[in-house]
């Protein structure tokens, strides 16, 4: 006996409507009309938008990054900082950070979760790219970059290579052919965690980090 599944019935009803096909909408044409800025302007816009959204922005260079990070960690008194494989791979950076805090390596599945929830003061991650228009940092979560590091600890520190600052999300997706495949999880982060659910009053640190610290690395 053949029985129609819910899937068959739903698709059957949709097909029965017999809609006329429509032409493919042209998102590229819309974005082509928008302002395109040079890299330094994009970086300025990124920094401004992030600061306006209550992220803390520090500007540094590749050579000065370890010292700048150490300074931030010391000034904020963050005794334990969780890092994933992507950061651990940068041996010299880790060596310098270990002078100012304990690094908690997150390298095995789930075993660090209780520690992450209870004992860690900050999570340090790299980023994939940034978006000027909205002041957004793009996290590319894969085997090298665990998802919880940027979410569970009260402070998220993220390093951004400013050469990878794009005008818009559309420009980023388009130039990198995201349509050919995405990792398990991509997260766009534009401010510390927040909510206005109580009488429209903005409060930070709802469920995610209360502070978002962005290290903008620019080599002129």
């Amino acid at each position, binding site marked *: 006996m053949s029985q129609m599944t819910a899937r068959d019935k739903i*698709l059957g009803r949709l*097909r029965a409507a017999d809609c006329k096909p429509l032409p493919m909408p042209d998102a590229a044409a819309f974005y082509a009309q928008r302002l395109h800025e040079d890299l330094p302007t994009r970086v300025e816009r990124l920094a401004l938008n992030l600061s306006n959204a209550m992220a803390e922005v520090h500007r540094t260079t590749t050579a000065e990054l370890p010292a700048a990070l150490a300074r931030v960690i010391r000034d904020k008194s963050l005794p334990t900082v969780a890092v994933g494989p992507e950061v651990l791979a940068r041996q010299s950076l880790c060596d310098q950070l270990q002078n100012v805090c304990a690094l908690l390596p997150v390298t095995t*599945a789930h075993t660090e979760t209780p520690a992450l929830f209870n004992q860690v003061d900050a999570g340090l991650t790299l980023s994939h790219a940034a978006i000027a228009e909205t002041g957004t940092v793009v996290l590319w979560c894969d*085997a090298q970059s665990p998802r919880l590091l940027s979410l569970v600890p009260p402070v998220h520190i993220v390093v951004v290579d400013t050469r990878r600052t794009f005008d818009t999300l559309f420009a980023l*997706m388009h130039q990198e052919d995201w349509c050919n495949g995405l990792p398990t999880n991509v997260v766009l982060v534009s401010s*510390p965690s927040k909510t206005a659910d*109580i009488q429209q009053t903005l409060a930070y640190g709802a*469920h995610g980090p209360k502070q978002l610290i962005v290290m903008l690395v620019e080599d002129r």
Partner: protein
Amino acid sequence: MSQPLNFVPVAEFRERARAVVSNPDLQKSLRGAMDFLQAKRTVQFPDDAELQRLRDLGEAIRQYSLAHLPELLVTLEAKLSANGIHVHWAETPEEANAIFIDIAQRHQARTVIKGKSMVSEEMELNHALQEVSIDALESDMGEYIVQLADEKPSHIIMPAIHKTKAQIAELFAERIPGVHYTDSVDELIQIGRKVLREKFAAADIGVSGVNFMVAETGTLCLVENEGNGRMSTTVPRIHIAITGIEKVVEKLAHVPPLLSLLTRSATGQAVTTYVNMISSPRKPDELDGPEEVHLILLDNGRTQAYADEQLRSTLQCIRCGACMNHCPVYTRIGGHAYGTTYPGPIGKIISPHLLGLASTYELATASTLCGACAEVCPVRIPIPDLLIRLRTEAYTNPATASQAVRGAGSAYSSVAMALWHAWAATYRHPVLYRAFTWCASRFRFLTPGKQGGWTVNHRAMQPARRRFRDQLKDRA
């Protein structure tokens, strides 16, 4: 089927609306909240030309997605399956709950933590889970507050918009063990954070809604500000996403314009704190994320709206809530009065498909057709036209009504219809019209003092002593 705890029948719509209108505190907080949201949206769209171009694009994308909906759903399913995400289809809320419970029981799940999902509200999922002894806890701060108070959301974006800070402070002190009264918003949020953190770490299943599903990549996009959506979709071993069948787009390139329209229209943000794009469960070499991801696609009357060319535009909706934020009726009666999962203008046009016109036709009449909703709708749903269409469907003779909407003809009355026909005939035929006005002015003393709904708020109408045409003749 058993009724959930605080189910409010749509039938008492007028009564509830009246109660809200006569509550000055509620009037003040609703007005304040709507003014806040309207102002925030306005700031996001300084350039009207850009806004109109973006709306053109958003509308075109949604219409294209609907025109190709069956193919897109098939492509989406194939792509998601290839990515390792399980896809389930449900015609009714009961079926969707059964699918959910089946997954939960297979994994012996006891606790569920939920990110915001309006479709799970449609399904009364929390109630269904309670019946099989599974605890479901809402983690969005607004939803958490509403759940603590045993209520339902009164707004699709800001669920606890009807509550004041003081009410929430009292609620927390009363319902959360060990919490003392505080009316500091920061402290209240930190209390919620602390309570819910423990639940995230312990939950077996995380639930989320979906804002956009991308067919070409098999990606689920979620927007949020709090981080509870990311928690719910990352920490528990199993993630179950629940959404309506209409939320699919074909191309990843279709997401940025819709995303921009959504967040700017909803809360006046250029972008939300987090945009979470999920394309697969955790891969073998990855360190966190759920081992299993499921997607439940719910119909629940959407195919009914789809079948009719005009009503189909209802499904263009991206659930930003701008229509309710700008609705003079919503601003006065609030979300609970509607008694439906989706309140406000979008609720008036979608609920008849979800629940049938018999129990919802009054909602479509609670509108002045001022058009504010259509003016702000980011995907240009012609809401006033749809309201008129639904009124027509409700009031036509069921014997001759189209079969487009379940419950069509529910409001039909043969007496009312006969009166309308008589009125139309009178106004079409000059002789009849003159005879009628002559009689009306002569026998004006017979006009009743009580004239149904009119005299509830107005003085009784009475024909003039002399007809207008006679008065004109006198002047000439």
